[in-house]
């Protein structure tokens, strides 16, 4: 597949709000498909049971919200409106269930709304631990995972076995390594991996089975390595943070790049990167290993209680690691986790002498001129004034 056709395929998957790829997978395999909201669910568990995990990241700017707005007041973020809209217009009929991870109170409450709106479907609030001791939070989380496995088995999924889970962990380890590899390549040569493209690839991974998506990532990597026409430009290197739940529209990402920024690190579709490094795939207790990875390898995040270390230090470390010259705080309007975190994060980057700017968006933001001017000015200021 050529680079162009691969990217076309990724964009088609991104824009397909009827989830055709999921329908096809179900027809092909007869398996269950279970949706999940941002930010993180352990997809290895579902995969090991023959279930397709499907990331439901909202509808972006491609869907007119008609009924979804009747479910939410004006001061609540946009993501749940489009998720409700997708549920009500039948787009999510291909899903046999939904997982609502403990991201914030809006997603938490959406889990109960889903139960009432779609009583026949499996719906579960995945309460991830905020205590990171293996014998306390780990034991609780393990039980959560066992409950999910039981419920899915009761609905026709393959019973969970240690061997299958080990294989799934291995498959996702490979996937994680490839995603991380592309992030590293983008840090080193951002002109080779434009964020608009990387983002489409990450989104494709929300609807494709991991094996297929892993192959897609490999193909992309090979194609961009061979793309002789991609040349460096004089752009400012920025780290973009705050967009871990409701995703920005693709147009916004492209606008930032066009305004003179190389995005060298970001929070997009974090489910692919939440676990840092490989999960142990050869242990006697793979479920325990998966739980332990959540406790010990989960990325610092606004949705995760930071029980030691300094708030914002991870962001400063990421700036250093990625070679970013500035930080753009790019959070969805009314996003409690991102916006409550922001004063602590900005304080940390200021202490470190890192320039930053901030703006908000909604997934259906359609006007980018102001953002383009702001980001362009920020990039110029970095180029002109940074030492």
């Amino acid at each position, binding site marked *: 597949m050529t680079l162009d056709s691969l990217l076309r395929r990724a964009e088609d998957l991104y824009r397909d709000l009827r989830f055709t790829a999921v329908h096809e997978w179900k027809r092909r395999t007869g398996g269950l498909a279970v949706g999940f909201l941002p930010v993180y669910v352990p997809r290895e568990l579902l995969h090991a049971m023959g279930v397709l995990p499907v990331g439901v990241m909202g509808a972006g700017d491609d869907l007119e919200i008609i009924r979804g707005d009747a479910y939410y007041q004006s001061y609540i973020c946009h993501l749940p409106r489009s998720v409700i809209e997708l549920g009500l217009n039948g787009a999510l009929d291909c899903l046999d269930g939904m997982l609502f991870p403990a991201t914030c109170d809006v997603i938490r409450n959406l889990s109960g709304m889903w139960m009432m709106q779609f009583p026949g479907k499996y719906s579960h609030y995945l309460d991830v631990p905020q205590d990171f001791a293996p014998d306390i939070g780990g034991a609780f989380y393990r039980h959560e995972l066992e409950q999910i496995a039981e419920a899915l088995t009761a609905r026709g999924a393959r019973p969970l076995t240690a061997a299958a889970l080990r294989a799934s962990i291995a498959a996702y380890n490979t996937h994680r390594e490839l995603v991380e590899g592309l992030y590293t390549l983008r840090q080193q040569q951002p002109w080779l991996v434009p964020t608009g493209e990387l983002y489409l690839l990450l989104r494709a991974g929300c609807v494709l089975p991991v094996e297929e998506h892993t192959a897609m990532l490999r193909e992309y990597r090979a194609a961009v390595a061979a793309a002789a026409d991609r040349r460096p430009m004089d752009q400012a290197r920025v780290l973009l943070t705050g967009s871990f739940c409701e995703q920005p529209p693709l147009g916004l990402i492209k606008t930032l790049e066009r305004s003179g920024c190389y995005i060298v690190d970001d929070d997009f579709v974090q489910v692919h990167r939440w676990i840092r490094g490989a999960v142990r795939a050869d242990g006697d207790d793979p479920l325990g290993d998966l739980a332990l990875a959540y406790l010990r390898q989960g990325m610092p995040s606004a949705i995760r209680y930071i029980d030691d270390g300094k*708030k914002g230090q991870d962001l400063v470390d990421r700036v250093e690691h990625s070679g970013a010259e500035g930080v753009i705080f790019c959070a969805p309007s009314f996003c409690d986790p991102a916006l409550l975190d922001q004063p602590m994060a900005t304080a940390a980057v200021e202490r470190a002498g890192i320039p930053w700017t901030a703006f908000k968006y909604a997934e259906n933001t359609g006007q980018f001129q102001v953002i383009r001017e702001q980001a362009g000015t920020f990039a110029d200021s970095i180029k002109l004034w940074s030492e």
Partner: protein
Amino acid sequence: MSNPVVAASAAAAAKDKSQERQKAMIADHFHKLAMAPDLGQKCAYTFVPGNLTELLGSFGVLPVLPEINALQSGMRGKSRDYIGLAEKLGHSEDVCTYVKCDIGMLKSGNVGPTGERLPKPDLLLLSYTGCFTFLKWFELLAQEYDCPCVMLHVPYQGDGVITDSMRRYVVDQLRKKVIPALERISGRAYDEDLLKRQLALSAKAEDDLVWVLESGKRRPSPIDAYFGGVYYIGPIFTAFRGTQEAIDYYQELRGEIEDRIRQGKGPIIPDGELQEEKYRVVVEGPPNWTSFRQFWQMFTDEGAVVVASTYTKVGGVYDNGFRHDPSRPLESLADYCMGCYTNLNLPTRVAMLAKYVKEYSADGFLINSVKSCNSFSAGQLMILREVEQRTGRPGGFIESDLVDPRYFSASNIKNRLESYFQMIAQKRAGGS
């Protein structure tokens, strides 16, 4: 023109004894907090939902409750400036105003609602119960204070039940994290017998609180279970659960309400007492604090009584039979935390509201949707439709905020309330 449904008299406008007692108790607590640094008394900042007052008390640690400070600041007209200051410091206009009010108060010298300075915390006890913002709030406070922060993660009742695994998780955190932290700051060893004695006292006060709140089932209701209710829950939701003072307060309150029932009286309201109960409503959501009295007046002007509310369950749901149980102290504290109202899933909240509408013979129910609180507010429009369907009673929806006066539009809210009560009157008269 005087309002026909309200009788204002010097005698009636005078506060009940219990209200005077409640006010004195709260003031005394704030005074103790102000004196704490001089007396070497340890203080823990913590939250109302999932508070561990008996456990803190067993270590001699005083609770400081930032939500209470924020709402008091709202009632005393100070929140606007505090919020403005926090926003100037970079806090988003989109987020919880309790947090911004607290940060603004802290940056303005941390003077509490009674005019005395609040102590710095010796411990931040992050009881993460039913509200994600709590987690961020104490991360923010942890940047300001040089003291330990201990997390108690209380699992959400996503499936509408408390499982053994959830209970074990909370108890393990209490045993291995919270209690050792309290031992360290207080210098005292954990005394389970003392905790049990305090829990036994809690249960007694809880019995009377439930009796008081359920008196709203009577016609006329002798209480207003929302505006009046916030005074009733004051002692038990703040610093007095597990004390003899709480038992004495609730006994006195109960006695006063028994008197009102004997005399066939309606509730005490700001201007006196309500003479004619025209409408009985259930209310979901917290009140607005910056215009609390004006908001209440909008109800009493229409002869509306709130016979039951969910806000009075935010620091503990007791009318479902739960009581603190000294025979299983830590398990009981765990069940208490997990049972707080905002820790219940939406189907449970809908069922609870529908039950209130029916059991309290309400004409309808109102949702006061506050901008600041996604824990309450996200999903309330669906709650509205579901409760209407299940009860056949009309629902009303108004919007305001907790402590940001910019979001209290008196004329809009009054218009909505008037229209709502007119609709109920028309329905009664046989209109569609």
